[in-house]
């Protein structure tokens, strides 16, 4: 089946948006980490995500062939043009919130990229191949922190439980298929994300139990990121992230 390259471009952009937004939220811990070692480790994960965003954006720019660049995608688009999942844009919160989000995202992203390795699109498959190796390490770290904090002190347990509860309604969006997801999945290029849900729930529930946490009830959910309908947090984040290019257009290092 031949598919409009414009659609593949949109698909690459949304995956780039996911990566840059989560990467930026993680990068906010740089010099704010709980101790030096963890500060460096978190920043490494942030760099992995920002590197992944660059690869997706560069590929999108190549497909668009309209003068767009990785930088114009990251720094010159407004909130409504961003197509990232909402969970990634939420403020970093405390360390428990950051690690809970990271764990839920790592479980999802590893399964997602493992599936994307089989993409009929060679570039997306190659990006996924690199991401899988990074993702296995990310998951090893965040899983470890779930157990440490959940089964740690009363305070770390309560903070982590609160974080998981606050995040839970945002996880439904991981598995929501919109038209583009469906087209990409049908063409063998993208991932059938709905098919990842059962495995994700099983693994996450097992981890929460090991970490002595309750699995929250799925009694609320929020979506909208794939349509450009965001929480109030993304605008604040972008105003910070895009400040230099907005204030000094074309500025170079």
């Amino acid at each position, binding site marked *: 089946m031949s598919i409009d390259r414009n659609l593949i471009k949109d698909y690459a952009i949304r995956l780039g948006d996911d990566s840059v937004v989560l990467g930026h939220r993680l990068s906010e811990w740089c010099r704010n980490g*709980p*101790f030096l*070692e963890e500060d460096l*480790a978190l920043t490494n994960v942030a760099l992995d995500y920002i590197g992944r965003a660059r690869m997706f954006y560069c590929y999108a720019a190549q497909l668009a062939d309209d003068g767009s660049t990785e930088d114009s995608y990251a720094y010159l688009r407004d909130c409504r043009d961003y197509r990232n999942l909402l969970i990634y844009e939420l403020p970093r919160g405390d360390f428990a919130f950051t690690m809970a989000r990271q764990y839920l995202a790592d479980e999802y992203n590893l399964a997602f990229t493992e599936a994307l390795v089989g993409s009929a699109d060679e570039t997306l498959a190659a990006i996924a191949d690199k991401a899988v190796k990074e993702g296995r390490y990310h998951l090893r770290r965040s899983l*470890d922190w779930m157990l440490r904090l959940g089964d740690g002190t009363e305070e770390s347990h309560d903070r982590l439980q609160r974080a998981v509860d606050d995040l839970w309604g945002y996880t439904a969006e991981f598995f929501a298929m919109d038209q583009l997801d469906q087209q990409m999945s049908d063409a063998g290029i993208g991932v059938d994300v709905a098919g990842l849900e059962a495995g994700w729930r099983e693994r996450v529930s097992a981890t929460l139990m090991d970490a002595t946490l309750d699995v929250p009830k799925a009694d609320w959910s929020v979506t909208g990121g794939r349509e450009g309908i965001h929480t109030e947090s993304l605008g604040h984040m972008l105003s910070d992230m895009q400040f230099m290019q907005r204030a000094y257009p074309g500025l170079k290092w």
Partner: protein
Amino acid sequence: MSHHMRLFEVFIRSRRGLDHKHVGSLHAEDPQQALEYARDIYTRRSEGISIWVVDSADIVASQETDCESFYDPHDDKPYRHASHYQLPDEVNNM
């Protein structure tokens, strides 16, 4: 938090066939976490292919006051050095 954490010494083997070399130290809660932090702190720029972490408390170190009895007696024993031995051309890497 960090004042409760254990100190570990980190050793990295840069490539196959070479020895692990001491590169520095770090704080962590346990050996497994120390290994992960060592990966993040000391191998970011492809410095290594193998890591050892050792609890710093397990290292027994010689002291400054040992110098006189440990090392000074070697000074007048030149026959222990291979300085008069002509190395054949065929031998590399000595």
